[in-house]
């Protein structure tokens, strides 16, 4: 496989080794250990109670939905689900952590192993790769510190404190920023398919730490790595990796050693700065959370969760390309948008020419929903009516070009395709005898171009077809026009 341009190790004797720790906020109705509403964007400190404020005497209670969702994510990624799992306390001081410890999981996470299949396009076409997972565990999110600009003051908003947070730790299986980006995008897609998180990086519902080391190509040794914390956009992840891989290669090229450090990425400057060194690493003094009993998953429960899993993106991609015969491009575009893919599949129930429907959904429907900033389901045409329009095109009842006007006219109402086409006067004429007459008339009027065609000038055929289309006010089926022009001229 040829390396894409975004790979800074391209053409060097080095290979990068990248691992990701993704933090995904689950959109459960309530928080991880209390009944407070789990919602983004509320007034500071309004979604709080004694438990998530860490009030003296308060105790946590596990959110069953969060446990179930974490297990679902694990099952979707092929992880081993722990039959016996527990929570631990991670002890450290920070103003956004009201209890002075975070309830997390240390040695018995909910999910172990597993993998995420990613696919991305590069110079050599679509690349598929499986990225291994180490573990997935559940913990509570911290609050948010807000620092005053002008005054030496800080505030803490604890609305986010106690929101269920899934930590997904990958193996160091990635080698390029592009792969890392593709992995993170696929993780997001999996969460969207499962409906467990919005994975909105701007709202912080998906955050990411990356581990990077660089080694001589061909080596299997894991070398000293650095960690970049709190990356909050896909672009930042890729840019930070580009920067850090390049920095490490330069150091290694000089024969110097990489220092194990935790770094922060400044997206404005495109640089990293040191957050803390190895010697300042925290000792979190983990120990089992005594306020919570261990959690037992029964075989039956795991099986029922497994059975209730929806089709996951990698499987859907294969089905769209295989059974439905879509082009890799169309399959990919559809799979990346859950709502659009559903729209597409519903449309197929009315009209099963998959590629034709896919063309329209990924093109016109997508443009419309993007332009209006709404989902495919909200643009005002049902999948069945769209399917009817595509069928009308395929059956030659309306030209592909005019069909866009029909589409616009169908938005926001429930009128049938045929009715709209008729009203707009856009029926396509596919009647051979009618078109043949028009063709004969045009040939009689333009002896020059006819001669050119006979001499082998292809362009002149297009001219003659254009003339026929003009005469029919655009309603003649262009395919039939072309066929008849060629027949009449004997070419």
């Amino acid at each position: 496989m040829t390396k894409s341009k975004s790979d800074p190790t391209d053409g060097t004797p080095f290979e990068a080794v990248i691992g990701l720790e993704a933090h995904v906020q689950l959109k459960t109705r309530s928080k991880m250990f209390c009944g407070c509403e789990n919602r983004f964007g509320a007034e500071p400190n309004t979604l709080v109670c004694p438990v998530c404020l860490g009030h003296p005497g308060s105790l946590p209670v596990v959110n069953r939905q969060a446990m179930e969702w974490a297990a679902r994510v694990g099952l979707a990624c092929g992880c081993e689900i722990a039959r016996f799992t527990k929570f631990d306390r991670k002890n450290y001081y920070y103003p956004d952590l009201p209890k002075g410890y975070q309830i997390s999981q240390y040695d018995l996470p909910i999910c172990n192993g597993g993998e995420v299949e990613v696919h991305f396009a590069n110079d050599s076409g679509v690349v598929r790769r499986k990225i291994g997972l180490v573990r997935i565990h559940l913990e509570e999110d911290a609050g948010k510190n807000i620092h005053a600009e002008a005054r030496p003051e800080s505030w803490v908003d604890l609305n986010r404190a106690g929101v269920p947070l899934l930590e997904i730790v990958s193996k160091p299986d990635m080698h390029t920023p592009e792969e890392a980006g593709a992995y993170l995008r696929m993780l997001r897609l999996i969460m969207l398919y499962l409906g467990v998180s919005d994975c909105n990086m701007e709202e912080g519902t998906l955050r990411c730490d990356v581990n990077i080391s660089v080694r001589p190509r061909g080596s299997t040794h894991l070398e000293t790595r650095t960690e970049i914390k709190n990356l909050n956009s896909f672009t930042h992840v890729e840019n930070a990796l580009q920067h850090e891989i390049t920095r490490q290669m330069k150091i290694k090229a000089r024969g110097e050693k990489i220092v194990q450090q935790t770094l922060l990425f400044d997206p404005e400057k495109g640089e990293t700065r040191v957050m803390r060194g190895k010697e300042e690493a925290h000792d979190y003094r983990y120990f089992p959370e005594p306020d919570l009993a261990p959690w037992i998953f029964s075989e039956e429960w795991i099986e029922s969760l497994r059975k209730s899993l929806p089709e996951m993106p990698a499987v859907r991609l294969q089905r769209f390309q295989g059974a439905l015969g879509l082009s890799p491009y169309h399959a990919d575009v559809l799979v990346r948008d859950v709502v659009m893919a559903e729209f597409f599949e519903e449309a197929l129930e009315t009209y099963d020419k998959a590629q034709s429907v896919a063309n329209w959904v990924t093109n016109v429907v997508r443009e419309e929903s993007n332009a209006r900033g709404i989902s495919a389901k909200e643009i005002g045409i049902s999948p069945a009516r769209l399917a009817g329009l595509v069928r009308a095109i395929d059956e030659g009842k309306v030209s592909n070009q005019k069909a866009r006007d029909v589409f616009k006219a169908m938005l926001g109402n429930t009128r049938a395709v045929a009715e709209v086409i008729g009203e707009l006067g856009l029926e396509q004429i596919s009647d051979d005898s009618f078109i043949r007459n028009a063709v004969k008339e045009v040939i009689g009027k333009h002896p020059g171009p006819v001669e050119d065609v006979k001499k082998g000038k292809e362009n002149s055929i297009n001219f003659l077809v254009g003339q026929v289309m003009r005469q029919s006010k655009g309603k003649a089926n262009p395919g039939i026009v072309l066929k008849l022009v060629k027949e009449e001229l004997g070419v």
Partner: protein
Amino acid sequence: MTTREASIIEIRDSLLAGRTKAVEVIHEALRQIRAVDPQLRATSQIFQEEALARAEELDMKLKKGEEPGLLAGVPFTVKDNICTRTGTTTAASKIIPTFRAPYDATVVLKLLAAGAIPIAKTNMDEFGMGSSTENSATVGPTRNPWRTTHVPGGSSGGAAALAAATRGMLHLGSDTGGSIRQPASYCGVTGIKPSYGRVSRYGLLAFASSLDQIGVLQSSARECAAALSVIAGRDPMDSTSASRAVPHYLGELERDVRGLRLGIPTEYFPDAIDAEVRARVQEGIDVFRRLGVETREVSLPHTRYANPTYVLISAAEASSNLARYDGVHYGHRARNPQGLVELYARSRAEGFGAEVKRRIMVGTFVLSAGYHEAFYNKACKVRKLIRQDFESAFKEVDAIVCPTSPVTAFPIGAKIDDPLKLYAVDILTVPANLATVPGISFPCGLTSEKLPVGLQIYGRPFEDHTVLRLAHAFQMTTKFHLAAPPVYAGS
């Protein structure tokens, strides 16, 4: 010698029969407390107005013919580490001298629902750390009503002193390593630490979550049974509370004890036990023999490791539980700190007392990387062995009998400078907390110096009714529990 009769159970009947009014009951309780408190310093706050208001409300309800709860009109005191909406909850610490809980602990809610009326908060060792109530940073030492130069034991020393010096009230305490039973023993009252999980901990300021349990200190086992029947049971707010059905404790008391098998563990009668304590306890065991209870020797071979195990586990959990008192969200905040680290360090250094700091440091140390395995993990393993000791013993016997404390109440100031001596006072009580079994202490006589000696009975987990039943049978044939101390306000 003045004697006293158990009475909280009769209050409801007196109210119903119109023999007295709730307001009169509260006035009498306030009179008693005010009569002894200047000498004993047993309370931290008295809720005169609130209690009288509640009593008036109750009298109105009774007038209207409403059915009163099981403990209607019973005045109750709350150890100062249990949250009450009324007044402050300080755990006798200067780190939260003005903390007003926004909620009532579950035990308080249950008592309120049963018609009981909170009347005062009682003094204690800071955060429950101590065995003498000398470590109270807010009130100062509480004194023993049997001899006011002596300690009442601790940490529920305020509750124990009041239970001994008054009558007709319910006293909530908490027990992490003997904090109910040891002061009950020193003050000549009956105190039960229920099975772990039997009573909700929600609203109890945590010292060591896996050991803490709320219980009561009363004049008799029968009063304890009445109190426990109200406060026991599953609480959805406390995941460690047990869902098994609550037995009918008062009914269970009446069952004959003949034929029950009582184990005498050799390890609980070491040479260090005071000779008079040993004698009273042996006489107490003879009482059981006369009642037809079978006695036999049992062995709990890991007993000698119980105290160090307790010290390590309780300190480890405390170091984490007390992290929230950091000057940012709760508690005392140092003035003009230079930066965040100094804010934490100075706030905690200024706010916590010496014993609390000692245990936080021990706990932080035993959880630290490099020491975790040798100390904390080892202690957890030994804890399992101690629990297994009990499981084996309880295959042969129905309950275990031993002294509550190796010594009787000691003079104020005698041991405070030597933490190891003070910790040794707990050696016979900590195993119950480590093994999560119920334990009760009740008086079995006085020494020649007129200081009470406590007899302790352990039962199988969730057989709180068995230890209550044995203690009740004992109290039906003896009068030790009726003896009133020199400082006594009951009429």
